[in-house]
């Protein structure tokens, strides 16, 4: 196994994913196989190759810094689980 349980726990925390205890064994095994599989890239000779950033080498466009959208907060917040007075509610973060 190229990854162990501690590493998978660390990755899951980085990704903000809570896994159930029974999911760990499976994740260690399958993620290890994926990592072993992509490890074959190490053998490729890429000296001096510029990493690809965009398939057509396009650059990001800029637009004038002007207001183009209107306020639709109420409609967008219909998809939120908990809102109040236009604010999204989350568990208390400051005591």
């Amino acid at each position, binding site marked *: 196994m190229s990854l162990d349980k501690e590493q998978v726990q660390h990755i899951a925390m980085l*990704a903000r*994913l*809570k896994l159930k205890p029974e999911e760990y064994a499976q994740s260690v095994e399958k993620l290890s196989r994926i990592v072993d599989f*992509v490890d074959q890239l190490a053998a490729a000779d890429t000296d001096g190759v510029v990493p690809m950033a965009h398939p057509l080498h396009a650059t990001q466009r800029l637009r004038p810094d002007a207001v183009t959208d209107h306020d639709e907060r109420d409609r967008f917040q219909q*998809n939120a689980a908990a809102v109040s007075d236009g604010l999204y509610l989350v568990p208390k973060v400051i005591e």
Partner: protein
Amino acid sequence: MMKLHTQTLSELSAGLERREFTSVELTKALLDRIATHNDKLNVFVTITKDEALAAAERADAARARGDVGALNGLPIVHKDIFCTRGVKTSCGSRMLDNFISPYDATVVEKLAAAGAVVLGKTNMDEFAMGSSNETSFYGPVKNPWNLDCSPGGSSGGSSAAVAARFAPAATGTDTGGSIRQPAALTGTVGIKPTYGRVSRYGMIAFASSLDQAGVITRSAEDAARLLGVMAGFDERDSTSIDQPVPDYTAEIGRSIEGLRVGIVRQHFDAGLDEQTGVRVKEAIAALESMGATTVEVNLPSIDLSVPTYYVVAPAECSSNLSRFDGVRFGYRAKDPEDLLDLYCRSRGEGFGDEVKRRIMTGAYVLSAGYYDAYYLKAQQVRALIAEDFKRAFAEVDVIAGPTAPAPAFRLGDKVDDPIQMYLNDIYTIGANLAGLPAISVPCGFVDNLPVGLHLVGPHFAESDLLRCAHQYQLQTDFHRACPEAFQ
């Protein structure tokens, strides 16, 4: 009235024009068919019956006024990855099972403006991550050619809808083969255009440097028609390309006399099912008999396309899917202890196994100490692969080969082995990495299951791909074959 569900988009368009039937009649006929047969296939996440009938009425009224759009009154279905205002847009995930989109994707908007009637939203692999439709929260779609088999993925609901004659055309998205592989496995046509050709605005993101929208139809002619409406610049997509859209339907009529077709030796190696290879070689011989010439081309780095993809795509996915936090939209875990618990449990409970696997793979290859060895390295190999294609397209107009290594596989066969599943896209991933347009065209059967011919072209060569596919379809009738249970 004659059977409407067997007709192509182009045939239905002519029928509407001649007033042989109305859009409301056509829409009702297909909705009835869907109501009768959908349970066998699990094609739809949502059937938009009321919206469809209202759109059909508007289309008929527009026709009566003489005000007809390019797709006036023609029924289509959307992959459930395209945000549709007022309609559930699930992306095949529990995470978005409760999400009613507050806006339309550009693709949805453009097709509606052209008069298309949307019958429903099709099932798909969760967040488009899968090659069999088995990762969907709503259960797998079944292949109309054999109900024990997968219709491919991730656009499996769209491919099955077209193959089962629920609709003449469907939208799809393709990040590593998600339009072309399901098209091959269901005997339909699937085209993934050049990266940036079709707007990604409102198309739920998986891997943004690879994702591209396209169509699944029964004929290349229909694909040309639909793509012409969908393609074009959109200022709301920062990677949209500002280039004029050719009239694809006009371009496909020309002969392929003199077309240079490249053949890649590795595409016919041991990984390919022998009978599938025979069908594909017959198709290439047919292109030759129509005046095309074949040339062997070399893509030295193509063997690394799958491992390259499985670094780049998960990296981008882990970043894109960080927006699902249980706060603004989507699934939210019950009774969180604190904010971190809210994030971690909403994501842990809301995402399925394969999505979590890819998010973690992405988090790993981007994490401190591994970024250079994996992500940067993969982007370098990606540049080599793109270079390979560029060199090849100096010599040939298209590259032809198999779309998938074998015909449709049985549901359950590969679900426990991610690498086996990933290798299903071995012939299609290269086009995504290099941003190239590519199409799959039905080219025969093995054991009564369809086989697809894959054609890849240089950037913006959609016309050549559609023309080659259309000219081939004028000489063959594989695309007219209908699964027995869905005649």
